[in-house]
């Protein structure tokens, strides 16, 4: 049970990553791999501040802000300097590796003895429950820490999801969506597509940085390697979400990305429990995304071939 709850909590934390990837890959169709660096950046900034005794809420916000800056840098490289989008992301991601080491001062910062959002969750949970006794759910004992963390993270993700849902229906949010859809058109309507891309990537990487900050606090450490493969992970979540609920409306896509992230994490947890070698995890994730990317084209080809045969 604690395995399941842990997987769901991490899935929810990583759904911020999935939402960030959704913004860059789906709204802007911009293959932004800054995420691998900005996720660690958020964790590093938050961890370094928390160790110094900063309020964890403030430290998490700083994680968001750091990711925001990293994303806008990628956006500036890609638009103002006309660098290929993929390369712009690689440049920023590579540079961030050094930056992250500088921020943390070493390759790993433990947070177990510091006051983090997890500490807040435990305190709040204990206060609400009146004792620190484990909670009995369907015959399973669940610690107060696990239960309250899950509930708080869920509420936080709900809030972020609603905020995004609202944002993409505002004047500036619709202009952003139109930029990804048809940049020529949005320029002709008086919007700088370059500014939209910079702002969009900033918000995307801000969410990813926040996800890193929360993950570091949940797992109790920040590590300079923790961001590796995050883009593919996020993309896998978005693709699973689209398979679950489709991509017809904005609200469905946002909810889908969150659900996809949680489901993916659950599947991974179960696979690991059943004896999957953790070293193979990234290989399998990449393989999964590859298959998910080619299957739609393959299916439609098959369909059109069949239609062609029936006409003949």
């Amino acid at each position: 049970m604690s395995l399941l709850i842990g997987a769901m909590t991490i899935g929810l934390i990583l759904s911020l990553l999935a939402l960030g990837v959704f913004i860059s890959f789906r709204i802007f169709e911009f293959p932004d791999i800054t995420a691998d660096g900005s996720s660690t950046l958020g964790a590093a900034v938050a961890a370094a501040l928390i160790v110094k005794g900063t309020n964890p809420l403030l430290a998490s916000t700083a994680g968001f802000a750091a990711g925001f800056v990293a994303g806008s840098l990628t956006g500036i490289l890609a638009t103002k300097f006309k660098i290929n989008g993929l390369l712009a992301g690689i440049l920023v991601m590579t540079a961030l590796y050094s930056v992250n080491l500088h921020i943390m001062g070493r390759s790993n910062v433990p947070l177990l003895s510091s006051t983090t959002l997890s500490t807040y969750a435990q305190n709040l949970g204990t206060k609400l429950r009146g004792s620190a006794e484990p909670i009995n759910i369907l015959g399973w004992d669940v610690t107060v820490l696990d239960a309250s963390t899950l509930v708080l993270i869920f509420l936080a993700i709900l809030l972020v999801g609603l905020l995004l849902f609202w944002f993409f229906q505002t004047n500036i949010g619709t202009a952003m969506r139109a930029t990804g859809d048809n940049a020529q058109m949005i320029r002709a309507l008086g919007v700088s597509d370059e500014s939209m891309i910079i702002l969009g990537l900033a918000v995307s990487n801000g969410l990813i940085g926040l996800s890193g900050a929360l993950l570091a606090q949940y797992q109790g450490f920040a590590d300079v390697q923790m961001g590796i493969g995050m883009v593919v992970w996020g993309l896998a979540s978005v693709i699973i979400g689209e398979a679950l609920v489709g991509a017809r409306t904005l609200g469905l896509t946002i909810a889908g990305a969150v659900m996809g992230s949680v489901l993916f994490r659950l599947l991974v947890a179960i696979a690991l429990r059943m004896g999957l070698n953790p070293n193979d995890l990234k290989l399998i994730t990449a393989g999964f995304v590859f298959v998910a990317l080619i299957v739609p084209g393959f299916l439609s080809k098959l369909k059109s071939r069949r239609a062609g045969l029936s006409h003949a």
Partner: protein
Amino acid sequence: MLDIKQIRKTFNPGTPNEVRALQGVDLALMDESFVVIIGTNGSGKTTLLNAAAGTFIVDSGSIHLEGHDITHWPEHRRAKLIGRVFQNPFSGTAAHMSIAENLALAARRGMGRGVGWALNRKLTDSFRDRVRQLNMGLEDRLDNAIGSLSGGQRQALTLIMATWLKPHLLLLDEHTAALDPKSADQVIALTDEIVKREKLTTLMVTHSMHQAVNLGDRLIMMNRGQIIQDFQGAEKRRLRVDDLLTRFDEVRRAEQLDETAAQMLERLYV
């Protein structure tokens, strides 16, 4: 008014693909005039339109619109003054967004965009009223993605979007060339109606001689990056398709003569 002075543009300069697209074009448009541009392929008519729209910055010369020197303004800044419809029906609308959302984007052309809701009841009602006048049955489909519409419907909507806020200059770039004849006629009728009702200053590029003689109050013929003929007033009104064909023939013959002469000279001297 629009005032274009001696603009020049060369694409890929210094390479084998060098194209001298505009070679010193002067054009002054009075307010409320409707000017049609015709010319052969590669004559520079679309390039002239794009120079005004800011798709690229001209190599030399100046462009003034409504008293602003817009020569070096980026495309999105000029959009505050200019409405545009493109040749490709896919270019003017965002396919994955709804009709209402596309119109809402156009309703703020050149204005700041903050975090207010893009759509509200009042705005949607006004969109519905306007779209109903098209008689295309789109008023009940405001929430549908624009990508599900036909090319003619998309061009009609793009025209409405370009003129929702009255532009100081309307640029139409062969906006019926990609449509079937019936849709093209519909869009042209709509164009004529909107331009006349709103008294818009309009610059329209077309391939159709028929449109060229029937629309507008001034006709400009371009060839090799220059304006070679300018019909205005009574002369434009008297113009028939045959006159244009004759004029095109003359141009072609003159060019052939040039080429034959060049070949002759080459034989003699090279």
